């Protein structure tokens, strides 16, 4: 007993997830390299987000960590254990929701959870699981009768019945309406507050900002930035974004170097139809910008200012736009 306890404590001291130089390529012509040397450490008790556009390798990465895919090379440790030696022990301690599982339409909420509960040696009762995702009133409804948000909450409940130490969520709110998204965020925050570790993937920057303690921005199969949302936003050189446009034919008359010299501006981007400035203090930058336009005799067509977001971090790092990537 004592020995077991020691061993468990030993595992407890290890991080929830460690990935070292993870690589995954799919054969074909040309060979598709989905993950190219990804390093990651997720600590116990944190909610960690993999943020990136579709096709960045997020799902491949999370499925390797979940033990569903074999990496081409590299090491993965989950809860201090390796998949090759301790697969069963890991599976008993994790909960997974995949990007698109359609659980059997014909079964009820309770039947589905009873089924998943039966796979785990220990866990919470099905009633507690239903309550924690606010589905207790739907317990006898068939899955075909559930809304998209309810189905997604059920998917989370199937991951919770084994009372996992570590919870995986792949694009948990994709395709949900704003109300359902907020409801799911509440549920996930409550899970995190109970001390569970969460790894989620998302291409929504607001989701990552609101839910995650730390975020890794993933692009082309690699982590290109890592930190708390605040740190990442601060790293783009300013909390504010000032965007302005002048009448179209005058656009190229604005000069990037002159703009960069304006008060508190840390960087400048030419967005073709408008200019975007990162600013430490918007209330210093805006008057300076207006005087510059006045001096150059440029006619202001639009002016907006907003808080910098993870979106701006992504744009700054890749020169591309998260949203453009999704529609492309």
């Amino acid at each position, binding site marked *: 007993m004592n020995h077991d306890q020691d061993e468990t404590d030993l595992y407890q001291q290890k991080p929830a997830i460690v990935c070292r130089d993870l690589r995954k390529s799919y054969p074909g012509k040309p060979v598709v390299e989905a993950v190219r040397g990804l390093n990651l450490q997720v600590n116990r008790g944190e909610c960690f987000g993999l943020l990136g556009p579709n096709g960045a390798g997020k799902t491949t990465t999370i499925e390797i960590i979940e033990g569903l895919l074999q990496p081409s090379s590299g090491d993965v440790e989950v809860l201090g254990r390796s998949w090759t030696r301790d697969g069963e022990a890991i599976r*008993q301690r994790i909960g997974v929701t995949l990007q698109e*599982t359609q659980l059997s339409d014909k079964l009820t909420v309770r039947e589905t959870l009873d089924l998943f509960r039966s796979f*785990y040696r220990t866990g919470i009762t099905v009633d507690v699981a239903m309550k924690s995702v606010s589905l207790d009133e739907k317990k006898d409804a068939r899955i075909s009768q559930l809304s998209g948000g309810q189905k997604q909450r059920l998917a989370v409940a199937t991951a919770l019945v084994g009372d996992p130490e570590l919870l995986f969520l792949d694009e948990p709110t994709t395709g949900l309406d704003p109300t359902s998204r907020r409801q799911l965020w509440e549920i996930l925050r409550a899970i995190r507050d109970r*001390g569970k570790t969460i790894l989620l993937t998302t291409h929504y920057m607001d989701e990552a900002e609101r839910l995650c303690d730390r975020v890794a921005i993933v692009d082309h199969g690699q982590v290109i930035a890592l930190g708390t949302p605040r740190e990442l936003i601060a790293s783009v050189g300013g909390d504010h974004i000032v965007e302005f446009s002048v009448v179209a034919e005058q656009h190229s008359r604005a000069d990037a170097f002159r703009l960069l010299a304006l008060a508190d501006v840390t960087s400048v981007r030419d967005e073709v139809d408008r200019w975007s400035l990162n600013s430490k203090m918007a209330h210093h930058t805006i008057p300076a910008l207006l005087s510059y336009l006045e001096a150059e005799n440029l006619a202001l067509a639009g002016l907006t200012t907003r808080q910098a977001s993870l979106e701006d971090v992504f744009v700054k790092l890749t020169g591309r736009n998260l949203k453009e990537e999704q529609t492309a």
Partner: protein
Amino acid sequence: MTQPSSSSSSPQHPIYHLTMARIMEFLRQPDAVFWSYFFPVLMVLALGLAFNKRQEPPVLVDIVDSQLHEKLNEALKANPRIQLKDASIEQATLRLRTGRTDLLIEKATEGSGHVYVFDPLRPESVSARSLVDDSLQRSAGRKDAVEVSDRSTSDAGGRYVDFLVPGILGMNIMGGGLWGVGFAVVQMRIRKVLKRLVATPMKKSHFLWSLLASRLVFQIPGVVIILGFAWLTFGVAAQGSMMAALVVVLLGALTFSGIGMLVACRANSIEMVSGLMNLVMLPMWLFSGIFFSTDRFPDAMQPIVQILPLTPLISALRAITLEGAGLFEPAQLMRIAILATWSLISFAVALKWFRWT
């Protein structure tokens, strides 16, 4: 946090929940229930009625010369089954070729006789020729050289429907195993349910066992309905033991579940699995003796015919229901061995090749 504290032991074994899930999914699909249980019943009814006529079928004869018609009319009156019809040579030839008439009689080009035109490969055509010729020769004064008499065998146990029912039962077991297991597996693969399940600590063998268990549970009402219906409507009764029949049925269900699993073990689209199933089932539909005895196939084909898994299943069922055979006669043991071999091989290969994600 170390070990989940709010633990409560799992209420039932995973195989129970997996099997119940399959059963519930099936029962909550009324159309699936209807097709798997009532289609074979409709088949028994249709074929049973078609081959269970109280009267012998008429013999249809076309005559292409009206003078000849008059001459033959008198002679053929003696046999009421023979129905004569005038037709032009073109019409009659077409009717013969398309099976709408059994025999064509035309005037011989030389002499006063006539010519029978018939299809020697079509049983009705052959029997029409000999029946008509027999009637003509007798009315012209031919005497039988040997005295013979007939006795009919169309009493219960020797009719076509008695022969047919075990065939339909075998077909139902084959279709049920392949579609029931194969389709379910591919659907779960497409819907990513298999992937979700392997992300849990579920034992893969539990999943496969539950597929088998649910298949056996579904097969029992199928057998009861087919046999019950055949007994009620046509008085079809088994000569041998029902327990022996049940053992063979369950072994058959096991074998075809295994083959269903094998067919579905890598397929990831409904089109692909449907094509494979039809490919697997087609030779058995043709050669395994569902509708007629496999003895009709040439000797050279027999090794292939007898090794198809549906053949020993139907033969074993027929031996039990028609001949009252048990399970331990050498011929029956051989059939059981062939079935068991098929199920072992298909399970082993399916397990090895099975794709979960």
